[in-house]
Structures are given as structure tokens and as C-alpha cells.
């Protein structure tokens, strides 16, 4: 399947000519001091685990009696045996906290103090709908009545911080996620090597005039055209005019996976000095209503390996990187009868970065007793997801959060940074 798709891209790319362009408004901006402007603010990478990642199968109090009673062993982080979870020092009091065995590369970062885990965290709204919950989180809200808010939270971040560079925001995908809705400072770039128009300079000029016609397509078209030109100037080209493959930093090896490909696009752009400030990366397929035992392990493995490689890849740059990982909701404490779990509520969030107070669990643990659960069924939420994002934004991006999360205010601090 994938081979065929790539064949299409490759064969089509074979004919791609070198891109040479005159300066447009955007390209002139590109020559501003992109890297200098970006350096005193971290690169924020926001990773969304779509489908509802089962936080209780990821990071859990493995000796908790309610936990053990609610699920068969293959849907828990077990205490012992071949699949025993990896111990997490500095967990919440009163329990043996562990992370899923397949998260070993992240466990290492936790022990090294770079990775913080926030548990019982999430969207304080009773929605168990994927699409509603994702939509609210990506817009930085917690209420359906605000769904009319027509910008994403990352789009508002890009408006709030100085972002003079060529490409302040990116999603390594064919398009932008809702979190970047309503900004002209971000673009979806699936593959840098394929981010080129194939027409000759004459055709390119005509394409420009066509996209200048007033229509619903004018804005995205002009933005995309300008970016194609400017980014290609930044990319290396071999003697045939083709863009060579990305080379990760020394000693860094990304595991083979689509998620790795996406992260490498971000890493490459970060190193190209295009003024990148914010990236939004999706990783899907977490909706484990069935087959959770093998599916979840694979999901965690393909999250942890690529993420740790990406973190190392960007570790020696002047501009630091802070990564947050979230999902729309956790899953039901009690397993269903078909080898899976249904939509739940509270969940884990991960925060990774040199300046993060890692190596510990943050937040407050509500417990898993029936009366402690949300609607007597799901992990309760003690930390609003925006608390986590706000601390990162304020400290690492020097960005006030009043406009980012309208109508929300912090209740205390986790002390993440």
C-alpha cells in the first residue's frame, strides 16, 4: 500500500525541476533573522494522540485493587511477568506507579529528568465524543457553546508571540489540524522533498495570477505558493536539482514508522532556520474498543521510539524544544466484553523538555474507587489540560495565556517548569 503511494510521489517527483523564484512579500520576510528571533523561545511541539489513548494502560498504579479488579491483566500495566511495567520513581503516594513496558525509551527520559507525566488530566467537559472532544481541545476550550470560536489554540499562540520567520508553524501532514485553524503563519507540509510546483517558470507565473483572483481559495493558495518558493531556497539540492533525504543528527536513528516520518519533517524544518516556533503532529488509531492487548502495545512502542529519537535529534540546538503529548480522553476503567475499553474521561499528558521538571508525576490522583470515578465509571479529572499547556506557554514560550484560553484562569500551578 504505502509502497505504491510512494511510487506515485517519487515518479512524479522525478520530473520536478529546480525551483527558482522572485522575491514575494513572504520570501523577503524570510531573510529576517529567523533563528535569532526564535532562539529565546522554545520550539513547541504539540502531539495529539487521536482516538482516545488509554492512559490507564499507559501509566498506572499497578498494585491498586480497584485497578486490578476492573481489567484483565492484558489490559493493565502489570506488576510482574514478561510484560511488567517499568517503575516510575516519584509517583503519587500510596501506590506502585509504572509505565507500559513498550515505553522504555520514554522511561529513560523520565529517569533522566526530562519527561514529566501529568495524570488524571484532560478536558473538563462530559463529552465522550472523539470529534467533539478533539475539537474543543484543539480550540483550547472546554465548552460546546464556544465551539463557534473559529481559531485553534496554536493559531492563537502564533498570533501572540513574535513570529517573524518564514514558517512559524507547521503540521507535517497534507493539511492543518483544527489547532492551527485561522492562522496564515502555518502550513501543512507532508513531505519537504515533494513540496514543489512542477510547472516551468512561465506556468508558475500564470498560476500566481490565477490564484490572485478573488475566491474562497485565494488566501490558502497565495500562502502555499509563497512558501513553496521560499522553502525550496532553504533546502539542499543535489547536482540534478533533487532534494536529498533528510539526515538525522549523529547517532540518531528513527524507527520505521509514519510517526517517525512526520517528526523528521519537523526536525528538518527546525534545522533549516525558517523560524519555526510551533509544530502540531498527529498520531492516530488509539481507539481500542477491541484487540487492546496487542494493539495498544504496538501503539505505545511506535509513540515512544520515534519521540525519543526526535528529542535526541533536536537536543544540541540553541533553540530548545518542549514537547507536549495529549489525547481527547482516556478510556473506561472497566474493560468491555470484547477485549477492549470504551470512551472514558481523565487521562495522562506528557511534557518533555530540558527545562521541564521531569522525573515525576504531576497533578493529583483522584483514586479509582467507584465513588471517586467520574460518573462512577471513568477516571476523574483533577487537572484541566489547559493548565499544562499554560505553564509551558508562559515559561517556555514567554506567551501570556489570556488570549490563548479565553475565559479560563489557572487554579494553582503544577510546577512543570
Amino acid at each position, binding site marked *: 500500500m504505502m509502497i505504491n503511494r510512494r511510487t506515485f510521489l517519487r515518479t512524479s517527483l522525478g*520530473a520536478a525541476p529546480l525551483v527558482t523564484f522572485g522575491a514575494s512579500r513572504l520570501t523577503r520576510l524570510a531573510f529576517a533573522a529567523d533563528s535569532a528571533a526564535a532562539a529565546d523561545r522554545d520550539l513547541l511541539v504539540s502531539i495529539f494522540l487521536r482516538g482516545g489513548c488509554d492512559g490507564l494502560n499507559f501509566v498506572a498504579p499497578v498494585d491498586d485493587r480497584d485497578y486490578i479488579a476492573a481489567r484483565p491483566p492484558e489490559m493493565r500495566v502489570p506488576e510482574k511477568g514478561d510484560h511488567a511495567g517499568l517503575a516510575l520513581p516519584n509517583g503519587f503516594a500510596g501506590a506502585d506507579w509504572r509505565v507500559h513496558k513498550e515505553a522504555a525509551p520514554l522511561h529513560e527520559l523520565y529517569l533522566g529528568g526530562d519527561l514529566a507525566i501529568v495524570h488524571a488530566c484532560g478536558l473538563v467537559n462530559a*463529552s465522550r465524543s472523539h470529534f467533539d472532544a478533539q475539537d474543543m481541545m484543539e480550540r483550547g476550550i472546554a*465548552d460546546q457553546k464556544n465551539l463557534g470560536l473559529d481559531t485553534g489554540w496554536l493559531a492563537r499562540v502564533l498570533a501572540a508571540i513574535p513570529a517573524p520567520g518564514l514558517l512559524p508553524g507547521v503540521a507535517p501532514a497534507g493539511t492543518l489540524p483544527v489547532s492551527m*485553524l485561522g492562522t496564515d503563519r502555518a502550513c*501543512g507540509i507532508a513531505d519537504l522533498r515533494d513540496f514543489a510546483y512542477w510547472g516551468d517558470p512561465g506556468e508558475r507565473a500564470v498560476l500566481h495570477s490565477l490564484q*490572485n483572483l478573488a475566491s474562497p481559495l485565494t488566501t*490558502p493558495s497565495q500562502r502555499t505558493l509563497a512558501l513553496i518558493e521560499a522553502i525550496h531556497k532553504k533546502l539542499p539540492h543535489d547536482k540534478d536539482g533533487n532534494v536529498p533525504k533528510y539526515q538525522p543528527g549523529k547517532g540518531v536513528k528513527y524507527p520505521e514508522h509514519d510517526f517517525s516520518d512526520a517528526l523528521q519533517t519537523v526536525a528538518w524544518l527546525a534545522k533549516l532556520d525558517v523560524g519555526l516556533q510551533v509544530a502540531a503532529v498527529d498520531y492516530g488509531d488509539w481507539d481500542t474498543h477491541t484487540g487492546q492487548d496487542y494493539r495498544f502495545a504496538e501503539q505505545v512502542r511506535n509513540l515512544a521510539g520515534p519521540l525519543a529519537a526526535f528529542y535526541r535529534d533536536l537536543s544540541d540546538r540553541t533553540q530548545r524544544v518542549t514537547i507536549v503529548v495529549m489525547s481527547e480522553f482516556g478510556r473506561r476503567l472497566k474493560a468491555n466484553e470484547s477485549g477492549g475499553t470504551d470512551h472514558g474521561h481523565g487521562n495522562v499528558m506528557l511534557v518533555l523538555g530540558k527545562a521541564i521538571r521531569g522525573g515525576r508525576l504531576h497533578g493529583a490522583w483522584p483514586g479509582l474507587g467507584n465513588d471517586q470515578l467520574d460518573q462512577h465509571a471513568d477516571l476523574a479529572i483533577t487537572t484541566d489540560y489547559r493548565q499544562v499547556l499554560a505553564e509551558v506557554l508562559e515559561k517556555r514560550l514567554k506567551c501570556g495565556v489570556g488570549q490563548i484560553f479565553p475565559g479560563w484562569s489557572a487554579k494553582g500551578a503544577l510546577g512543570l517548569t
Partner: protein
Amino acid sequence: MSAPADTTALRRALDRVTYGASPALIDEAQRLGWADWIDQQLAPDDSQDAELDRRLRSLQLLIEYEIDPAADGKAMMMKGGKRQVKEMRPLKYLDLGVDEVFPICRAENLPYGEKERPMNELIIGTIMRAVFSRWQVREMVVGFWHDHFNIDAEKDDAILVSIPAFDREAIRRHALGNFRQLLEAVARSTAMLYYLDGVQSRASPANENFARELFELHTLGARHYFNHLYTKWRDVPGALDGKPSGYIDQDVYEAARCFTGWTVENGEEDDGGVKRPLTGRFLVHDAWHDPYQKRVLGNEFDSQRPALEDGCRVLDLVAAHPATARFLAEKLCRRFLADAPPDTLIAKAAETFTAQRDAPDQIAQTLRTIFLAPEFLDAPKSKLKRPLEYLASLVRCGGIEFTPTMEVNWALESMGQRIFRWHTPAGHPDTATYWTGGTFLLRRWNFARTVAFDDDWKKITGCRYLSLTPPDCRTIGAVLDYWHQRLTGEAVPDAVRNALLKTLSRDGGADHEEEFRGGDRERTERLSACCALIAASPAFQLR
């Protein structure tokens, strides 16, 4: 009831409801008149689609995969290393019953390339129908329902093989029919039972996947999900009269219980060692059904009722709910007219949908209301074509010879459309922001060039722009006017006339009166570049 004001409006309306207004289609609609043409399209006669039938029968589609004896555990049986299967085969799965194909998905040692063949044939069949079917409106409506009842065929081998039956017996059979019947055909289909895990749902706790999406995506819609407002069913306004204005999680839980036992004859062993037949057909397995009393949308269900009855009652309730009429009306208007369709049009459509609730052609009548409304006929172009609409309309309006391969599917995917392979149950987004966020948009512009210039595509898309140009178009201005009008239904905008003329001129000039001259090859080259740019322009991208 209204009619298009002039030929431009007629052309625009045709582009909205079809995969592209070819010259022949425009003639046909002009001859019949808009209302009669719509009525004919809404009552398609499958025996009258000869060209499509002929092309589907004669199409050969490549199947290509490698057998690795080591990986298949057949090393002992096969001599030598990897074996390559690479051959052209006709389409054979489109008309087969689910029982004829289902055993394939459970055949051990059968390579994946064979198991995914039914899905691949359906993908190609869908592309062929979009381009060649005479019943263009139905094809557009079928596309709508496939997103509404989205299924990712790659989720399970059982879906790979049963997706043609889903397309034929659930979606196509009822696409223009009655919504309640469509809903049940979907709910009982092998493909949906696998996609939303109904196949495994048993008491207790039930698997909630299908029940949740039934409310949220298939019927009432997320706007009527009131879980943030109420935690008890009796608090939802109207619930005590059996007419709640929306639903909450308690309805999802209860509906999930109603569907326990709706499963598939998939050859698996049930408790007690009894093996199910391997037919892939719908199976009601009462032993898995949660037998106790339930309450869905304020309606009481007695205990110990059969699984089929419980599930069908849920379908009755959601299909008849006023929120469903509104939700579907809005989605239909959004798909056919604009990202933000006018409320008045949505209201009219919902009214017809509700009034015709029991009619066998409820959906066709709802569409008729939309297509004949002045809001529909008078609105300017604003809806971005989906990649398949873009491809098919380019082929149809441009008179391009077309023989699809799987390469076409990868091209559509590269622009963001994954036919039968979209992962999440909401289906593709239906607003332009999804298709225009960067790379997807860029690839549209490149795609127009691929069709005309890419060597690998010469056998897929045969462009005949030069031979189709009328002989009396002698100047570059006349050639440009002809092709812009033919592709977009509109005159060349003044602001881009000179730029487009230059692509046709021998020396880069922009004189309307310059003779269109040069050898065939040279003129073909220039005309192809010009048409590729027209195809990339808003006038062609929008409908």
C-alpha cells in the same frame, strides 16, 4: 420550485450535482429541462447504463504482490526464493454476494494482495462510475453516504472482502430510498459490524463503539449530544414524554445493550464449541444479547425481547428523531451546495425529509427539494471539488480518454481523499479548509500537469485537447475561450486573460488575434499547459 436562470446557471447546477458537466450531459439537461432531468436522475434505471457496463466488463486491473516463502512458512513446499505475482485481471468482485467472498479473508496462507483485491476493485469501480455512469446524481449521493457511514476497509480483512457487498446492498440499494431502511441495511452489514466492533459486542459490558457513532454521526448528530448538560436521562427536556430533544451517555449505553448479539457468521467458535458458518452473513446471536429491560431516548424496552427487535427499535427511534432530519438536511446541503449553506435551504430539506419519512423515495424527494430551490440554483460557485470530483470532472469536461489503474487512487490520496480507507468514522471533512491546508492544495495544481504530461500517466489519461478543439478556433484567443468555457462553464476572467494567452502563444505574446500555429506536438504541448492551468484555477476547482 425553481429553474436555472440561464445556460450559465444550468451549467453551474449540473456541476454541483454531477462529477462534471460534459458537453453531452449539458445537451441532455437542456433538452429535458432542469426539473425533468433531475427527476430522471433521481430514479435511475440500471439497465440503461450501457457504456459503463461495457467499460467495467472490459477493464483489466493489475494485481501485483510478492510471495515470500520464508515469511509464509511455505519454504519447504516451494523451491527458489520470492515469487512475484504480476498480472492483469478483470474485475470479478463487484457483483459477488458476501457469502461468496467471505471465506477469502479467513484463508490462511492467502497473500494479502489477494485479500485486498475486492477493496481495490471497488475503488476502481467507484472511480469508473464517477467518470462514466449515466446516473451521475446517484454517484454523487453514493459518495455522500460512504462518508456519512464511513468505513475504513483496511481495519480488518473481513472488511476488505465485504466492502463491495456493503457498497452494493446497503449504500447503492438505498442511496435514494428511505433513510430508515438505509440505516438498517448499514447496521446489519458485515462491513459496519466489523468496522465499529458490533461483531464482538456481547453482554456485558457491551461494546459501545457502534451505538455512540450511530447517535453522533449517523443520526442525531453531535449538536444534540447533551452529556455536558445532563447526567440522567429523565432530565433531558421531553424525555418523560418519550421525546427527548437530544441524547446523553445513558442513551449510548442502553442502545449498545440493544445491539448486543448483532454479529456475523464468521466461522468463529462460540461458547460451548459451536462453530458458526463461514458465510459472512448477518447473524443474530441471542446468547450474546443483554436480555434485561432498557430505556432509549425515554422509551421503555421490555426485558427478554429478541436482539433483532431491540436493535430495530433503536433504529426506529433515531431515524424518526427531528434532530436527524435537521442533521442530514444540513449535511446534504453542505455537500452539494456550500460549506455554509443557507438556513432556509436546510429548513426546506428537513421539512421534506420529515414529511416523507415513510416514503420509499424519502431521500430522493429531499434532494429534489434542495436541487430545485432558488437558494441552490442562484448561488455563485463556492464549493471546492473533492479530489475525485476534480479528477472525474477534468476527464469528463476535457474529453480525456480514461483507463484507471491503482495509480489514480494514490493520486487521489495524495490530495487528501482516501476512498474506503478513511480511518475515523466521521468520514472526510466537508469544508475547504481540510483540502487547502498546504500540501494537499499544491498537489492539486501538480495533478493537472500529471494528467497531461507525466509519462507514467499516458496510458491512464489520454488528453485530446488539440483534436477536440473546433476547427474554427484559429486564434489563440478563440482556443482559450473555447477551453475555458468548456472546462469551467465561464468566460475567461479579464484579470488572467493575458497570462493564459501567453501559454498558447508561440513567442509568449498575449495578442488575442495571434494565429494558433505550430506542429501538432508543439500545439499539444502548449494547449496541455494551458488546460492544466485552467484546471488549477478557482473557476475549475470550485463548483
